[in-house]
């Protein structure tokens, strides 16, 4: 297990290298004079020169990159232009909101998706099967941020059950937190719910055709016991493998959902930074979110290796 962990950590190094390079390059690809973009069109040359020097943009590219990496290794991602504070601090402070939103959405997507998938598989070929799969396909096809707006119209504007946005920290009020997170998490979960439902159905149908299921049924075991004790357990293994990929999609999707529901997460920080051309925040937000995703993937692999010993002995 230790060897597996070490191998997995080592393989993350080139990925992190590319991630950091791309994040570094983001400022370099801004067309024209980046300092004019930052300082505004009516800025003086002196102001621009000051920004250029502060950002080290007057140095050659290689030197800029070396300096950037030097500070990165110390966890320093530079200063935000407009917030007047370190980027690392601003991003890390908002990371818990984004992570809890993505986590809640993951739970919803898996729970609802598995439920729909089982329903479709045990009622294979009936209207329930078709209905669940149509629902799953619809979930896969709608834009999640738009679904969030529809949820606001129905549950906040029309029914008045839940707030239209805003965030209540769990430390303040756990009920308030749950109320503020329900609609965003549901909006974020809808696409992945479709993915999970389709996967669950397919793998349930496959497992239910296996010999050991027929054996269990033949020896007189009840249908629902066979379905839940034998079939479902094995059918869920493929779902575990996609949890890592799903987390990535959810983390990325959270960026948009946060700005729809005014949640103070990393996503909304990045979107705000885009509007105000606060490039270090965009750069740092991108880097930290991607690094989080790489880390989550390692955790998922470890969990999977623990569940299925074949994985950890494999190369």
């Amino acid at each position, binding site marked *: 297990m230790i060897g597996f962990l070490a191998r997995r950590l080592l393989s993350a190094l*080139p*990925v*992190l*290298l*590319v*991630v950091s*390079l*791309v994040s570094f390059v*983001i*400022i370099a*690809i*801004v*067309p024209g004079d980046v300092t004019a973009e930052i300082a505004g069109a009516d800025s003086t040359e002196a102001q621009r020169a000051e920004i250029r020097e502060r950002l080290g943009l007057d140095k050659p590219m290689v030197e800029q990159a070396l300096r950037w990496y030097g500070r990165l290794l110390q966890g320093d991602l530079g200063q935000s232009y407009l917030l007047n504070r370190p980027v690392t601090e601003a991003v890390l402070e908002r990371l818990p909101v984004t992570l809890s939103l993505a986590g809640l959405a993951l739970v919803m997507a898996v729970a609802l998706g598995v439920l729909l998938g089982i329903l479709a598989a045990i009622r294979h070929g009936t209207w329930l099967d078709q209905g669940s*799969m149509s629902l799953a*396909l*619809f979930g*896969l*096809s*709608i*834009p999640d*941020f*738009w*679904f969030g*707006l*529809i949820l*606001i*119209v129905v549950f906040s*504007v029309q029914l008045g059950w839940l707030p239209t946005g805003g965030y209540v920290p769990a430390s303040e009020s756990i009920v308030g937190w749950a109320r503020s997170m329900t609609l965003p998490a549901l909006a974020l979960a809808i696409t992945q719910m479709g993915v999970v439902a*389709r*996967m669950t*159905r*397919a793998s349930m*149908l*496959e497992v239910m055709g296996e010999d050991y299921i027929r054996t269990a049924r033949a020896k007189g075991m009840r249908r629902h016991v066979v379905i839940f004790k034998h079939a479902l357990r094995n059918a869920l293994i493929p779902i575990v493998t996609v949890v890592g990929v799903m*987390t*990535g*999609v*959810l*983390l*990325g*999707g959270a*960026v*948009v959902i946060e*700005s*729809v529901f005014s949640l103070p997460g990393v996503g909304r920080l*990045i*979107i705000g930074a*885009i*509007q105000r051309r606060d*490039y270090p925040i*965009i750069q740092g937000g*991108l880097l930290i*979110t*991607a690094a989080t*995703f*790489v880390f989550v993937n390692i955790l998922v692999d470890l969990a999977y290796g623990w569940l299925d010993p074949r994985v950890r002995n494999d190369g």
Partner: protein
Amino acid sequence: MTAEADADTASLRREIARARRRGWMRFLKRLFSHRSFQVGFALFSVIVLLALFADLVAPYDPNRNDYRNLLAPPSMLHPFGTDGFGRDIFSRVIHGTRISLGIGISVVVMTGLFGVVLGMLAGYVRWLDNALMRLMDGLMAFPGVLLAIALAAALGPSALNAVIALTITFTPRTARIVRSSVLVIRELPYVEAALAVGAGHARIIVRYILANALSPLIVQLTFVFAVSILAEAILSFLGVGPPPPAPSLGNIIAEGRSYLQDASWIAFFPGMAIAAAVLGLNLMGDGLRDVTDPRLASQRGAG
């Protein structure tokens, strides 16, 4: 003697061409008898036609203001209602669909091109494989559409930059799919046979490997089309796509966001247009996958 041989080759060529056509016809017949492909194809065709003939179909100029009809609810005159400037939402949605499909198809073409070139290089040229794939892994480590958002933000809001940002985001997975097909195909006996009779690398790559790696690629590109339409909507919703007043579907939704209380139709209809286009593409992709991959077809519409 040589004339006879030439005649033989010519008739053989004709025979091969005929067989190939028969194979194609059989494939198309199977594809069009697949139910979800039929539904998806019908739905998507209608949307493509509406977008192609947007100027003829749209009852109004998408940017024409009508100050006597601000925020009018859906009616006979304005089937999808009007927005805060009195612009006809139906006309804007139809023109917006044209923009979305245009960006989507551009991303598909570019992603296909780069995906094939990079996937082929990685699969065929051993020493490039590792470096290229690590680069692709690194790009895939950016969660979801976040990379596209950051790239589009840095490059500046425009349709072209949206295409560039989305192509960079979707190429890695496509390249990986092409690479894994190439790795399997290059070991097959017919490639060895072609090498043995003296076929060059170019011929092997195009006629033997690419031709046989095509079906998983087409399935993937159908899904890239669907995902690009969704991602483009996100970019314009966040203000880093084609800038207003261009009636891109994401822009209309973003504008409708301020009127959720009184005029929810502004945000509702463009979202439905996106959903319809993406649903059509997903259904077609499901059908294509079932028909081209017999292993999955046995599971009947699985996954």
